[in-house]
């Protein structure tokens, strides 16, 4: 059996698949809540909305918690204590390729050089099942080359009509198929053809495009461009774009005493480069005092490369959830000198 063997999961077997997957740990999947979708713990397949485009908050929340205790301390004992890492396996079902690619980028920050213990413990305990999606008018992952996930998941289910074509992304995924052989059939030539066809149809549905070639250099020569005045003026500096971005990972660290004034917690929380104090240093100097500098910093950070991947996966969240209607692709197009009608 080859590692890249393709399998078929009949849709009628999805409930069975869900039940077996549940044995690995609590399943978290996209659930429709009012007008948005959110990754939530689910008990049954009926709760899941696999037909979603994007959740508001990306699945990064399972690996870098919006707020988490990184140490507890005791002033009487003069000691810091690491929290106990006894978390259950995190099973994510229904993650789209853009978010998987974003988590792969986060892994470069948190798991290379000096690995972050908190991220690492959760990630190695995770079980990620990807699912295919249909782009809407805000999706541009085709441009960012993140419309397809090659790694960073256990299994990836591609909807090809009556069945799912299943790709294996890791040894854990390989083992899952081996252990549950009766649930899967080997994909035949027709299935593969059908997969290729639906993939192409999906790619053809993208309406939004952003030229990525040379974007880094365009950003560099646009440092003093008017585009930052224009959007800096528009931007409210609220930081929503950072919270919904699957790749944003800035964090703040704060110490809190408990009421006994001896014990307490060192807490790390999501932070935002759009907030005024992000670039503020002691003595009052602010390296990014206005929204102009801050929005420029954000777009340059997004457009920069980490090895061969840029820090934006084209999920469209920052555009969809911006209260000032700042459109990411539109800004980048202006950076490129493309006129916007």
């Amino acid at each position, binding site marked *: 059996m080859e590692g890249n063997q393709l399998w078929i999961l009949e849709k009628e077997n999805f409930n069975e698949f869900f039940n077996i997957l549940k044995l690995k740990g609590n399943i978290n999947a996209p659930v429709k809540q009012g007008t948005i979708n959110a990754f939530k713990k689910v008990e049954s397949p009926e709760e899941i909305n696999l037909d979603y485009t994007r959740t508001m908050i990306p699945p990064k929340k399972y690996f870098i918690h919006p707020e988490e205790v990184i*140490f507890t*301390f005791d002033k009487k004992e003069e000691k810091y204590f690491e929290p106990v890492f006894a978390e259950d396996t995190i099973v994510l079902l229904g993650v789209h390729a853009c978010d998987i690619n974003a988590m792969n980028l986060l892994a470069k920050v948190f798991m290379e050089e*000096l690995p972050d213990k908190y991220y690492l413990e959760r990630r190695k305990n995770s079980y990620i099942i990807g699912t295919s999606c249909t782009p809407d008018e805000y999706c541009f992952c085709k441009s960012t080359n993140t419309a397809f996930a090659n790694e960073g998941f256990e299994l990836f289910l591609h909807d090809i009509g009556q069945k799912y074509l299943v790709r294996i992304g890791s040894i854990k995924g390989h083992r899952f198929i081996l252990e549950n052989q009766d649930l899967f059939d080997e994909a035949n030539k027709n299935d593969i053809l059908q997969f290729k066809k639906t993939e192409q149809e999906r790619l053809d549905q993208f309406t939004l495009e952003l030229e990525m070639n040379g974007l880094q250099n365009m950003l560099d020569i646009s440092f003093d461009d008017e585009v930052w005045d224009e959007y800096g003026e528009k931007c409210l500096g609220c930081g929503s774009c950072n919270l919904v971005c699957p790749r944003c990972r800035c964090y703040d660290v704060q110490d809190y005493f408990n009421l006994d004034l001896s014990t307490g917690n060192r807490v790390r929380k999501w932070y935002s480069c759009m907030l005024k104090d992000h670039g503020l*240093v*002691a003595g009052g100097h602010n390296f990014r005092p206005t929204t102009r500098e801050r929005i420029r910093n954000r777009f*340059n*950070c997004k457009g*920069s490369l980490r090895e061969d991947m840029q820090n934006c996966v084209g999920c469209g969240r920052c555009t969809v959830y911006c209260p000032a209607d700042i459109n990411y692709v539109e800004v980048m197009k202006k950076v490129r000198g493309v006129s916007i009608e």
Partner: protein
Amino acid sequence: MSKVNPLEPIKARIVKNHKMTDIENLITIKFQDLAYSENFSYLPGQFVKLGVMGVGEVPISICTAYDKFNDGLELCIRNTGRVTNAIHNLKVGNILWARGPYGNGFPMDQLEGKDLLLVAGGLGIAPIRGVIQYALNNREKFGEISILYGIRCYDLMLFKDDILDWFRNGDETGIKLYLSYEDEEDEMCYDLECERDDRCTQGLVTKLFSMLDTPSQNTVAVLGGPPIMYKFTVMELEKLGFDPESVYMTLERRMKCGVGQCGLCIVGTGKSIKYVCKDGPVFSLWEAMNTKGMI
């Protein structure tokens, strides 16, 4: 995979707390864990994250050369925020928490064999002092050492003993220290100016360049100071024909982690994103010229 948690604070004890000015103390700490202490080594220009339990952590540059580490780690701390205020309230024997060292530090091996021109403004002398100590401890490896130090007034002069010693007796060790002061009314500084009017003047640190003999082709400039100082100092250095690769500077940014995760110290454009904490805080002028927004 490493089991070490890079964010874990290490216990240290304050062995000396010397008040240097109204707002700056020189605090000397020693790590409690001897094994940790033995493995701790650093270059001038590197920094530590220094913390007070329940208050928080701040990045502080180390202001001694590693040769002096056995006497403890010296940190010059200005009382300017919540954490530094808490540190100022501590006494000898109290516990402080530190982790590091972080950052690249000055490339001392590349500085060897060169004449050094060190330019510092205010608190910027702290990381530069390690360079001076390093050069003095390895005196034969360095050529002429010139220091330009700009202060606001005599009362805010840091490392007074060192500075005045280099000012008065520097010729014996081959150090020329030039001093500038901003406060026109400052009598103590005026006295120093009367003492050596070829080495001391009222004005900004850039004014001292006119007192310098033309630096040799073999000179490397090292800068430490507030952002505004870099802009004007670099203009002077360019006039003197300094190559962008023979000018080094150390930068300040807000930092929470020190290890390239928290994202607060990011500078640059899409082409040149840098983390000041791990790619710096020491950068050459050439790097600064290619990283917009750095200075």
